[in-house]
């Protein structure tokens, strides 16, 4: 697939291998390359988020304040959570999905390889934008990972960057999910009905639907925060007739499915590995599918 889509560079010698160097990774439409990019990104973000956790634990080693300012501490907890959820766990599973789903269902690649490339390459920019706010005068976001108003509206202008970054992360996740759903429904080998799909594919199918259903709600909620902060609306401002608890309801409409988004692919991984190494078929496949 990748060799045909990159045919617009006019090689005289018929070299249909991948491009060399940076261009290979920037322009790749190969599902394994993109899966690898996702997994590397996830690992790097794991160290970034882990470093933040080290700062948090070092400060908490003794009561009182020893190492960092409370605002910086709060932005460490906030960023640690966002980095670990959106930058580590979710990309790690999208990376695994990119690698495994086409091979598990007998497809040559993902259904939408160019969108696959795009949905990955949005993410480094989203995180660069969010992590970059740490180096601004007003510091990083410090209102907690749940972004509860009114506290989150008190921060500096890093807030606007975080909202924009969350929009990017959301677009990336939704595009990845659309790609996975399209691949699973359209590119299975002819002999593979839904109820014969490997369980990892099943769990990712459900995860992808959860993402498509909940990420736009979260994006809407942070947009309402943005307009509250900069355009004088009062969605969540009690003094203006709004309701701070409404944000919590909207946030957890996303937040509760999100925990399943984070765990379902892992259940799928376990359901592949254990039967393989126990050398026996998965017990109760049908009920596992329905439980998913």
């Amino acid at each position: 697939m990748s060799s045909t889509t990159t045919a617009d560079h006019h090689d005289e010698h018929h070299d249909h291998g991948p491009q060399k160097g940076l261009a290979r990774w920037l322009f790749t439409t190969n599902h394994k390359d993109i899966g690898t990019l996702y997994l590397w990104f996830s690992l790097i973000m794991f160290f970034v988020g882990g470093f933040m956790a080290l700062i948090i634990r070092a400060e908490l080693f003794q009561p009182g304040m020893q190492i960092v300012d409370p605002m910086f501490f709060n932005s460490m907890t906030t960023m640690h959570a966002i980095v670990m959820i959106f930058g580590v766990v979710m990309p790690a599973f999208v990376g695994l999905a990119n690698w495994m789903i086409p091979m598990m269902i007998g497809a040559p690649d993902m259904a939408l390889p160019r969108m696959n490339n795009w949905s990955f390459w949005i993410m480094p920019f989203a995180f660069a934008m969010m992590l970059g706010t740490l180096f601004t005068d007003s510091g990083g976001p410090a209102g907690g990972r749940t972004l509860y108003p009114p506290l989150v509206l008190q921060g500096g202008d890093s807030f606007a960057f975080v909202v924009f970054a969350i929009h990017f992360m959301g677009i990336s996740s939704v595009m990845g999910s659309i790609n996975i759903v399209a691949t699973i429904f359209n590119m299975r080998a002819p002999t593979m009905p839904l109820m014969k799909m490997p369980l990892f594919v099943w769990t990712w199918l459900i995860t992808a639907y959860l993402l498509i259903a909940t990420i736009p709600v979260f994006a809407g909620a942070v947009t309402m925060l943005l307009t509250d902060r900069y355009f004088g609306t009062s969605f969540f401002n009690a003094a203006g007739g709004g309701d701070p608890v409404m944000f919590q309801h909207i946030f957890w409409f996303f937040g509760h499915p999100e925990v399943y988004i984070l765990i379902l692919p892992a259940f799928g991984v376990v359901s592949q590995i254990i039967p393989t190494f126990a050398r026996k078929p998965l017990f109760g496949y049908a009920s596992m599918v329905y439980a998913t």
Partner: protein
Amino acid sequence: MIKFKPVAVVALIGCLLTLLPMRLMAGWDELNMTQGVTQVSQDVYEIHMMIFWVCCVIGVGVFGVMFYSIWRHRKSQGAVAATFHESTTVEIIWTAIPFAILIGVAIPSAKTLIAMEDTSNAELTIKVTGYQWKWHYEYLDSGVNFFSTLHHDHNAARQLGADVDLSQFEHYLKEVDNPLVVPVGVKIRFLHTANDVIHSWWVSDLALKKDAIPGFINENWTVINEPGVYRGKCAELCGRDHGFMPVVVRAVSQDDFASWLQQQHAATDSPKSRQAVSTTSSNDVQPQRTAVN
């Protein structure tokens, strides 16, 4: 296989022996959830322990079967994988058992939750308002009200770079200038709200924790059984000094509470001038606290 069995038995006995000396259990009360000093906190503790032991039994059962299966059926011992993969009976059983356990823990939990919400017939109502970063207490029946902030000495010591010997503080960062004073044996209703961002007024010995949300009034209640000083914190991230707005509740006898209330009134020229109350009361509480203690 016989070769491994004595090792396993010795290891098991060793594990049990290490559990026997009660010295190892000495720190348990500090690790475990507090039993508190109210009926509700006692109920919460008992539910916690019941669910804890249910989890222990489930954990030992599930992991026991799992580790035994892995150990017993390892390839080096020539184990041959079974090929069965469906059993409706087993699936019904292991769906029904967790369901029954959940119902079993939901009933006492629901009872306690309902009891927690019943704020009727309170004899004393205190409005608690969260501010960045202090608490304001108002005794609605008598009009006495004051702010409660982190104790000045603690606040000075906690500053970055402040080179202070922290061992001089018995309750470092858990001391306030004006503690909330309440009577024991009386049903007290708390009304929670906030002035700026969301806070949460949390005192674990009283099993009280309620979000304080600007524009909303939440309520909860307590009857404290034992006089004493009970400490808590703000439990909802509220900005820079979220970690430095402790709660201190001093529960005193009803007579002491009445005289304390009198003193608060006397210290105030007129109950309407609230600024005056909050500043003068801070001077008056200190000597009185040592007297009661």
